[in-house]
Structures are given as structure tokens and as C-alpha cells.
């Protein structure tokens, strides 16, 4: 049974690198990609092309996005009673304190900054998998709303 993960990331290089890293970490992960905030919300709310999109078990959210940035997306998710139970992990290159504070205020589940070194990045992805997709206990009901 595949593990559904939504990656919200506009940089194709990063998308690929992340996909590569997760594939190495856990082959059963089925990663969906939204390249901007609007698409991310459409996917989560199963709108338009995403009518049949699965409910992800984890959202990986970059902050700097076109159209609707990661902070807005986070806000929408956490305001939505149906979506807010999905763990949302901020994965970004920003190390700005303001971004960190803001994200937690918007009830991000955790804030991770992308390491520069590939090794470090792969280690991080591995730990995300270990923690969020393996150890964490999440609500069982899958609302298909």
C-alpha cells in the first residue's frame, strides 16, 4: 500500500532531488507534486484535475512559491477542519527566524531547512521518513470528503 505524500515545490531540481532522496529512503512512498500554492490547495481539496487525488499522509511545503506562497497555503490548510490533521512539514532553504516563527504560529508541524550538502539532505529525508511516515501515529479515519 503506497504512502501518499504531497510535495509543494516549484524548483524542478529540488523536486527531483527530493524524489530521489525519498525513493532511496522508502520505495513505497507515492509522491505527488504541486508546483505552486494554488495547485497544492486544488490537490488537497480535489478540485479540477485533482478530483481523484488521494488524501496525503504528509505534506512537504516550501515557503517560496509562485501564485500563493507556502505561508498562505499553510494557513489555508490549518484553517480547514478536514485538512488540518495532515502533518505539514516546512522544507525550505530559508533559515530566517521570521519565517520559522511565522510558520509555527500558523501551526506548521515542523520546520526543516534544506541542508546544502547532498549527504546531509539525504540524511534529513531519511529521518523524515523514519519519523513522520513510520513512527508517528496519525488519525486512522480517512475522510474522503
Amino acid at each position, binding site marked *: 500500500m503506497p504512502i501518499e505524500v504531497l510535495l509543494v515545490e516549484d524548483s524542478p531540481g529540488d523536486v527531483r532531488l527530493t524524489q530521489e532522496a525519498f525513493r532511496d529512503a522508502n520505495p513505497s512512498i507515492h509522491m505527488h507534486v504541486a508546483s505552486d500554492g494554488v495547485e497544492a490547495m486544488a490537490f488537497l481539496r480535489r478540485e479540477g484535475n485533482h478530483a481523484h487525488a488521494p488524501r496525503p499522509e504528509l505534506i512537504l511545503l516550501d515557503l517560496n512559491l509562485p501564485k500563493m506562497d507556502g505561508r498562505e497555503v499553510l494557513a489555508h490548510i490549518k484553517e480547514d477542519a478536514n485538512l488540518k490533521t495532515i502533518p505539514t512539514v516546512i522544507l525550505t532553504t530559508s533559515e530566517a527566524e521570521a519565517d520559522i516563527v511565522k510558520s509555527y504560529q500558523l501551526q506548521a508541524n515542523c520546520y526543516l531547512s534544506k541542508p*546544502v550538502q547532498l549527504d546531509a539532505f539525504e540524511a534529513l529525508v531519511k529521518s523524515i521518513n523514519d519519523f513522520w511516515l513510520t513512527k508517528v501515529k496519525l488519525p486512522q479515519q480517512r475522510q474522503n470528503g
Partner: protein
Amino acid sequence: MKTKSPIRGQLQLAFGSAVLALLLVGAVSYRSLVESRESDRWVRHSHEVLESLQDLLAAMHTVESNARGYLLTGDESFLDAYRAGIARTEKDQTVVRNLTADNTAQQRRLDALATLAVQKFRLVEKVLGLQRTNGLEAATGAIQQGSGKQLMDDFQKVIGEMQDEELRLLALREADAKRRLAQTKIVLIVGTLLGLLITSVAGWSVQRDNSARAQAEEAMREGEERFRTLANNIPQLAWMADEKGYTFWYNDRWFDYTGTTLEEMAGWGWQKVHDPNHVKRVVEKISRCFQTGEVWDDTFPLRGRDGKYRLFLSRAVPIRDPNGRILRWFGTNTDISESKDSGAKYRGLLEAAPDAMVVVDQSGEIVLLNVQAEKQFGYSRDELLGQKVKNIIPEGFAERLIADGTRSAAEALAQQIGTGIELIARRKDGTEFPIEIMLSPLESAEGTLVTAAIRDISVRRAAEKHLAQMEGRYRGLLEAAPDAMVVVNPAGEIVLLNVQAEKQFGYQRDELVGQKVKNIIPEGFAERLIADGTRSAAEALAQQIGTGIELIGRRKNRSAFPIEIMLSPLESAEGTLVTAAIRDISVRKIAEKHLAQMEGRYRGLLEAAPDAMVVVNQSGAIVLLNVQAEKQFGYSRDELVGQKVKNIIPEGFAERLVSDALRSVEDALAQQIGTGIELNGKRKNGTEFPIEIMLSPLESAEGILVTAAVRDITARKQAEANLLNKVEELNRSNEELGQFAYIASHDLQEPLRMVASYTQLLSRRYKGKLDSDADEFIAFAVDGASRMQRLIQDLLAYSRVGTKGRDMVEVSSEEALQQALINLRGAIEEKGALVTHDSLPSVIADDMQLIQLFQNLVGNAIKYQSSDVPRVHITAVRSGANKWTFSVKDNGLGIDPQYFEKIFGMFQRLHKREEFAGTGIGLAICKKIVERHGGNISVESEPGRGSTFRFALAESQVKG
């Protein structure tokens, strides 16, 4: 008579004494007269007693003889005589008893007489009875055997005693009377002689006095004669009166004019030729003069022989003797009735008057007027003559001419004389205008006329109104003036002044208004208002306008002080007024004096000073300044001396001279001495400029003066401002640069991460699967990417020191070091380094940066090593107040001193990359961190002998 000549006194005394002597003589004579009459009475009395006693004896004999006759004859007629004899004895006894009532001895004897008489009578009766009853014999026998004869003898004896007594008394009284008479004679003779003597002496002296007086009277009579001759030839009517005012002489003119005689006129008869309306007043006045001795002046009409009255001006003076006693009055009456000549003169005078003149009689009719009056009222002379004055002055004039119940016309008028009365006049065309009239009485043959000088005061009224308006407008201006202001009219009288003038001269406003300006400025001001022979007042004034004139002012307390006045003309309804701005230049004058004294000593010094120098006294007035000060403030010296320093340094200087509640002047000043105070100066043209002043005290006779060196710091301020701008600019550009470095390094990191990640991925997945060249190329790409990543991360770290710094807080440097060592654990273990430290203090720092600092320094110390066991020791020593100097000492490679500076620069490396990896930013970051903490970093080293890096940090203020 109050005064007595000595002769008169003596004379009185002499006459008094004579009268007294005569009185004495009279009194003595009278007394002797009275006494001698008394003596006579007593002598007469004694004789009476003697006679009465004789009578009594005779009566007794009669009784006896008649009793015998009857006995012998029996004739009844003897019996009758006998009985009458008894009655006589009784009567005589009574007489004697009364006469001797005052003599008890005689009374006693009288009693004895009475008893003897009774016994005798009883015996005779008995005999007579016997004769009737028993006949003659019995009776004769009884007589013979009886005691009849004895009784009679006794009786005679007592009578004799009494007569003797009376005779003795008589002799005594006669002697007494004789003695008195002799005394009286002596008194009379002496008294008379004395009286005669005194009287003759007095008479002699009177004789002498009288002859002197006769001479004087003769002289006077001659003088009077001459005088009368003279007086008869003067044109006036003349008279003479005695000291009581009794007129005894008139000159011929008097009689010629009045047609009277001396008989009619003598004494107070002159009243007959006076006007009955005036005579009472005249008599009252002259009587008063006669009493007091004052000179008499009066004007009144006198009736001439033709029955017409003419007006006379009269005057009388007392003529006194050398003792001041009034002897005579001499008076003259001068005819001042309008003659043809005097009328013309009077007319001329009237016409020459600048005012309208109207002469009015007591019925209020106009009797005379001048051209001005015609003009002013718009009537021709003929229209006005004989008219009621009410027609031209409806109210207030005519009323004043008329006596009311309580006052005579003269009195009513007297109250008005000489005072300007403001009324309303009416022109012929009915228009009204304000006037001021001055009344004066004019005695004339027709009674008292009233001359009214009438002045049209429309202009003045308008001017007054105008002035009132002006005052409102200018008063504010006047009061606002910093100087004393006094406005003076052409007569030199003060018409307006301000509060400063009151203060300066010490007067109240009311005391000065209307006063001569000379009272406050005795010389040099009033003169300037007055035209002289060559210039008009306006010209005289014009020459003075705007120039400061130095004069002396005088305060109410008479103290004088130097002033400078500036005059300016002020056109007004009252003519050209002069406004004088008066400035007290005492301080300036003192300063000038002081300056003169000080000049020798200080002038050179002062002028040599490169700065503007201003010397100020404690009241803040400038007493001295130098050329630089003149230049700097744009004033000439004279304009500044005496001025308040506030005028050139508006704030911050004068205040420093003044003591407040907490500090004395000296203390206040002491705090300022020697410190440069930055203030603003103000030039004459009003522009301000920054100055720095340095104050220093200067002891002087006037107390402590303050010398202020004033430096124009415009240029410095400009430079400072420029510098500040530059610094700001630099800061901004630095910040921008920091921002740029951060953004650049951050943004560079993204693509670099891609490059690095994918080259690494490439190397990992395809190493050995391509040819050896490809493997080598990939290895270079991976190495370059990672070096670039380190470089960018160090750059980021460096830029973060400036842009991402945290607040300075109290930090334990030991804990910071521990954290750094934890971060360096890998390197330390790898190299087997030995890192030690002393106990380290708490400091004020950004903790993250402090960790970074230790981490970089210790990291370097471990890194640049050749020995087997790298040793690093960290210490901290106190260096000066609140400072700690940290040392990080190693046993590493050491550094050549020529590179000491270089190593702290960006990207500076001393070693090849093959020897030691690194970006050359580590020490630059250290330097930046230390500098951000307000210190600096240095190194001490020798190649091969290790290095010691030192930096200082501020000690934490919190102890413990």
C-alpha cells in the same frame, strides 16, 4: 500805641510820680481833717458834760432853795418851782448819763448822784409833810436834826469829781489834737515840695521835647508845603489823610474836577462824589488799608462838576515816621476813562489780539469787539454791537455776568477771571463751534465791563480727539520700546512717556506729564527744541534727528546718570512734538571708563586673540569686546557696549551668569569655566550661527566679569554635519553591502546547492561507469562546488555578524568557550588537541558571536599545527576598569609579524590550500565580532613558536 519813645516813658513816669505825691499829700490832709474834726467833737463833748453837770448842780440848788422858800413862806408858788427843779434834775441827769455813756467811771458816779438826789428829795418831802401837818417848828426841827445839809454836800462833791474827770479828759484831747495838727503840717509841706520838684523836672523835659517836636513839625510843614505845591501841579487828583484816614487836604485838581470845597470833602466827605453803586466797596477797601497800612489800589468812577462820572485809577500810600508809625496817607486818582487817544490805543490793542475779543456790559450786551470776533462769528461789527452776547455764545457766558442771590456781579465775575472756560459759540450761519473764553473785568464809566478773549478750539478739540486715537495706537508701541520714551512739545513740556521712562527717572507718570523736560534732562535737550537766530525750530530739530546725543539725565532723587537720546519728530495737532528715545548708558559709560583703564593691559591681549572676545558683567551687559567680535556679530563696538549679551547670544550665556536658588553666581560660573559650550550667536542682520564659548572669570572693580571667547564654529559644524552625513552614508552603504552579501550568498546558495547536489549524485551513481577523465572532471566539479559552498557559508557568517547580530547581554565567557569546544569536538578529537583554560569572567556580549569567536580562534589554533599534541590555553585578565583581555595561546606554526595585519583581512590566507583548507574569512569574522563588541583583536607570534590572539571585552556590571 505800640511803640514808645524813651522820653515819653520818662515823662509819663515823672508825671505819675508827681500825681502820686499830690495824692499822698491830699490823703494825709484829709485824714488830719477828719481826725481834727473828731478831736473837736470830743472837746465839745467835754464842755457839754461840764455844762450839764453845772446845770444839774444848779437844779439841785433850785430844789433846795424853793423848798426852803415854801417852808418859810408857805407860798404855794415855791412849791411849783420846787417841783420844776426836781424835773430839771431828772432831765439833767439823763443828759449827763447819755453824754458819758462811754465812760464807766462817770456812770458809776452818776449812779451815786442819782441816789443822793433821791435821798435829798425824800428828806425835803418829809420836811414839807411835817410842815403841813405839824407846822413850821416841827419842820425846822426836822431840818436841823436831819441830814439835809450833809446830802447836799455829798452831791456837790460827786459833781465836783465828775467835773474834774471831764476837765482831765478835755486836757488830754486838746493835746492830742495839737500833735496831729503839727504832723499834718509837716506832711503837707514835704508832699508839696516833692510834687513841685517832680513836676518842675517833668516840665523841663517836656519843654525840651516840645521844642524838638516843634522843629520837626516845622520841617514837616515846610515839606508838606512844598509837597502841596507839587501836588497841585500834577495831573492827578491828589489828597492827604491823617493816620486814621481822615482826609484833610485835596489838591486843586480835585476841587477843579469835582467842583467841591474842602469843607464838603474833609474827613470822609469824599464819598459824596462817588458812584453810589461803588461807594460801599470803595469805603470797605480803603478802610481796610487804613487799618493795616497796606497800599491801596482801586478803580472807581468819580463824579465831575458837570455831574458825569469818569473812571479813575486810585492809589494811596502811607507816609511813615522813622519809627514806622503812619503819619499821613497820600493818595492820587488818575483819570483812566476812555479818552480819544487811549481809546485808539485800546482799540489797537484789541485788534492786535490774536483771539476774538468781545467786551460786554453787565446787561450782557456787546459794546465792543475786534476784527477777529467778526471773522470768527461771521457777523459784521455793526450787527453785533448792542446785541446780546447770548446770540453768539448761547450758554455759559451771560450767566456769569449776572449776580445771583448770593453773589454780587463783581464776585461772580471774580470767580471766573483768568480761567479758561470751554463753551459753545454760534456763528451767524447757525453753525456751532467749541470755544475757550478768558474773562477779565474792565472798569468803565458805565460800570464794570467784561472783556472776553474768545478762542476757537475746534482744531484743538479735533487734535485732542486725534491725539486720543493716536495715543491708543502709539501707546502700545511706546510701551513696547525697550528704551525710555518721552514725547515733548515745542515748549519743552513732557506730553507722553512710557513705563521705562518712569522707571529710569524714578517718577510716576503723573509727576512727569506737563513737566518741563529740563527737570529730567537739565541740559542739551530743551535747547534743541528751540529756534535760534539762524534756524527755525524745525530745522534745529532736523539736525538732531536720528543721531544719538549723549546727555545727562536726572532722576527724581536728584542723582544724575548718563543717557543717550535719539530724537524724532512727531507731527501732531499741538505742533511738532519730539519723541526722544532715552537710553541709560551708565553701564556703557562705566564700561568706557573701565575700558580706558583696562585698555593698556588687555586691549592688546584681547585684540590679539584669534577668537571674538566679549567681556560681560553680571547683569549680562557687554562691557568690552574685540575687533573679532565686531566682525563676527556685524556690529560696531559702540553698538554693542552696554547692550545685553542676549542680543548677540540669545540663549544659554546670560543664564549662566545668574545665580539660581541652588548656586551662587560664582558657583554657577565655576561650573562653566573652561568648558566649551556650544550655543548660537546672532548677528546684527538677524542671522544666527553656531558658536562655541569658553568662559573665564575676570575680577574687576565692578565685581566678577566674565570673559567669553566666542568662536564661530560654522565651519566645524559644517564639517561635523558633513562627517555625520558621510558616516550615515557609509553606514547605509555598509548595510547595503552587508545586505547584499547576505542576499547574494543566500541566493547564490540555491543554484550552488543544485550544482553541488547533482554533481555529488553524479559522482555517486556514475563513478567508475564512465571513463577516468569523466571521473576526474566530476571530482573537480564536486570539489569546486563544495569549496564554493564553504566560501559562501563563511561569507554569510561574516555578513551575519553585522546584520544578524543579537543584543549585548551578560554572558558567561566560560560557558561560551565550552559551547565552542563542543562544536569543535570532532576536530579536537581528530587532532588529539589539549585545550585548557583559566576561570573566565562574565562579560557583556552577543553570546552566539562569542561562541563563534572562541570557535574560530580555537579552531585555528588546532588547525595550523605541526606538533603531535596541539595545545591551546585560554585566559582572561582584567585590563583597566571594567575590561577583560582574553588570550588564546597555542603552540602552533606561528605567524611572521609582517602578516599580522594581513591575516585579519577578508580571503587572506597564508597557506596553500593543499596544506590547510580554509576560506580566509575566519579571522575576518573574529575581527568583525570583536569590533562589534567595541574592542580590537591583535596577535603576538613568532614563526615556529606559536601564536597568542588577544581581544578585550567589557566586564559584566552585575557582580557575583
